[in-house]
Structure formats: structure tokens, C-alpha cells
């Protein structure tokens, strides 16, 4: 694999705080009080708009009594973008993109779910560049072009 080009997803941190909190019957305020942060912080954390510091993350894990990797997980940025595409773009534009690129409907929407090894095998860099542009991003915003 040395010298071969490979493409990786850029990821962002998402949380399951809300689900776990709801299971424990805690309100945002309850959780905020126990961790020792403001309710706003919890709100933005749940919305995924805030990259918490490690100390806060540890405290959340402690209060919710779950391991860190169960509460926080990384998800490709492109996954959320593809999920939201139907709200952001008219159906016809998506249809046109699929037709011009000659790919299957289901494959397009599952790009966020496939393995990173699969990613560079199944799709050319040119296609991913087009896809990023279609989603209104630059290639570097969604993918990492890494040498192995």
C-alpha cells in the first residue's frame, strides 16, 4: 500500500447525550447542574455545535455512567450533509447529478456509511471532488487526502 493514494473522511464529533439523558430521565438543567456547566453548554453539545474540552467530556461520562466512546462518536461530515440533501437541494438537481455521474441512487446516499478502505477503492478522487462541490464544500472540507 506504500505510495498509493488514499482518501479518508473528515469526521466530526457527535454525541448521544440526548438519548442517554432521556433514558435516565434527566433534563438539560439537571445534567448541567451535575456536571457543573451552564445549560447552554448542554444545549450546544447536543446540537453538535460545540467541541467540548476533555475535562467536561470526562465529567459527562462520569455523570451518565457510560464510557466515553459510547457517548461521543465520530461521524463523517459528509454523512450528515447527504442526509440533509433533500431539505437543501431540489429533487431535480440531485437527480441530474446522479444521472451525469452515472451512479446508483442508493450508493450516493450511503457514501457516509462505507469503510474508508472501500472509499478510495470504489470512488475516484475526481468523483469525490465533484460530490464535494455539489454539496457546496471544498474537497478538503469533507475528505483527507492521505498517503499511506
Amino acid at each position, binding site marked *: 500500500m506504500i505510495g498509493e493514494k488514499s482518501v479518508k473522511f473528515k469526521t466530526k464529533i457527535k454525541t448521544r447525550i440526548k438519548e442517554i439523558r432521556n433514558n435516565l430521565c434527566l*433534563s438539560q438543567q439537571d445534567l448541567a447542574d451535575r456536571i457543573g456547566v*451552564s*445549560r447552554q453548554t448542554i*444545549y450546544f453539545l447536543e446540537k453538535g455545535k460545540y*467541541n467540548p474540552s*476533555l*475535562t467536561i467530556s470526562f465529567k459527562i461520562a462520569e455523570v451518565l455512567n457510560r464510557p466515553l466512546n459510547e457517548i*461521543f462518536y465520530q461521524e463523517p461530515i459528509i454523512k450528515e450533509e447527504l442526509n440533509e440533501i433533500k431539505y437543501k437541494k431540489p429533487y431535480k438537481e440531485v437527480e441530474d447529478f446522479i444521472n451525469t455521474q452515472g451512479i446508483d441512487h442508493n450508493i450516493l446516499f450511503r457514501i457516509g456509511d462505507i469503510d474508508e478502505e472501500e472509499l478510495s477503492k470504489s470512488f475516484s478522487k475526481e468523483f469525490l471532488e465533484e460530490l464535494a462541490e455539489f454539496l457546496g464544500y471544498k474537497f478538503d472540507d469533507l475528505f483527507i487526502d492521505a498517503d499511506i
Partner: protein
Amino acid sequence: MNEEEFVYIGTISRDYVKKEVLKNNLILVVYAVVVSIICLYVYFEDTGFNFDLFLISIFTSVVAPYVAIALISALYFSAFVRNFTYKVQKDSIVINHGVFTKTRATIPYRRIQNINITTGIFDRMFKTFTIKIETAGHSAVSSGTTRRGIGPEGYIPGLKDPHIIENKIKEIIAKISTTPSGLEDKIFKPEQLAFDNFISYILSKMREGEKLKTSIRQLREKAKLSAVMLAEKVGVPIETINYLEEGKYNPSLLLASKIAEILDCKIEDLFELA
């Protein structure tokens, strides 16, 4: 248009015509009196101004315009009332008006700021009311009357029972602007935000003393990586790694998870709350 969208359709009272005609006649009477006094003054002062000439001047400058204007205004306002309808719909109020130029003004409830009910002296004589619906911006186009260039966007004059329409609009606005059930705890009130900011400031001050214990160095040496190599892989300056190893820096979760990924361990193995 969907049948269900209509909630209430109304027209305005014919008393509006009487009121406007009376109002215009009063102004005309004042005008007639003033002109007559001038004519009388000229008649008594100027000997060349005989009685026939006086009658003619009174007729041309007082009676003829009076009758013409009164007639035209009566015709105009009865046409105005005939052409004026309003519909209180589910999401907007629609006002159709105009004698010469037909206008159809649609005001969405979301944009309504307040509703004024006014009743002037002449209005009170005929027991009619005027509803003014004010929105954030003024525009002459959607204004209810053609006479006033710029006024409230919704202008419904000559109403006998303004409270019906007022209550209807208020009811619908209340329905639109209330928080949907289940979302109450997700919306911050201003006083909560101020308190929140204060608390978070105090807490952030308190947290400054917290320290993290870390075993990055041990794990890094176990993986046979130098600090420089690790910094390069993570994509941060070497100083960051140094600070982290000394426990002087509280990393973000993203950074911590990157390091954990590279060193192939859990975040919990790397860091520990002191």
C-alpha cells in the same frame, strides 16, 4: 383555493358612506360659508357689483361645486363600500379593495405587530369602527385606503362589530406564536440566558484549577513514536504535544480522540481526571 382556508368573510357597513358624505359635506359647508361671506363683502363694498352678478358668482363658486363634489363623493364611497371585502384566513388576512384600481392585500399573521381599533367623532355618530393592522414595514401598495399614501398595511374602515374580527385575528395569532408543546424546555428565556452566562463564567473560573493526568508519553514511547512524529501525525504543533505531556493543557475532545486513534488506545487510557 382550499375551502378550509376560509375562516371569516366580511364586508363593511353602508354607514361608512353616510359618514364619509357627512364628513365631506361639513368641509364643503365651511368652504361655502367662507366664499359666501367674501361675495357678500364684495357686493356691499363694490357698487358696480350688482345683485344678478352676486347670484351668479354665488352659484358658480358655491352651489355648483358643492352639489358636484357631494354627488361624486357619495357615488365614490358607495362604490368603495361595494368593492371592499376582507377575508380572515388560516394564515393571513386578505383585503380586497379599490374603485378604479383593484387591490388585493394579503397580510400574513406572522408579520402583524399590533391591531388598533379607532373610532372618530363621525364614526361615533354612526357607531362604526376602523381597524388598523400594523406590520413591521409600511407600504403604500397594500394600504387599505387609496387616499392615504402611507398608512397601516391593513385598513378596514366602517366596521359595525370590530371585536369579532379583532378576536378572530388575536385567536389565530396566539395559535401561531405559542411554543409547540414539548418544546418548552428547549427555548431560553432572556433572564435564564443572563443567569446562564454568569454561572458559566464562574464555573470556567473554577475549572482553571483542574488538572488532567496523562500517560501520553508512556504510550507514545510504547508505540515507538517521537513527540515530533506524533505532532506531525495529529497535525498540531510540537508545543501542543509537549504541553499535553506535562498536563498543562486541557485538549478538546476532538484532539484527544485523534491522539487516541493514532496511539491505538482509548481516550480513557490516555487521560485521567486528577
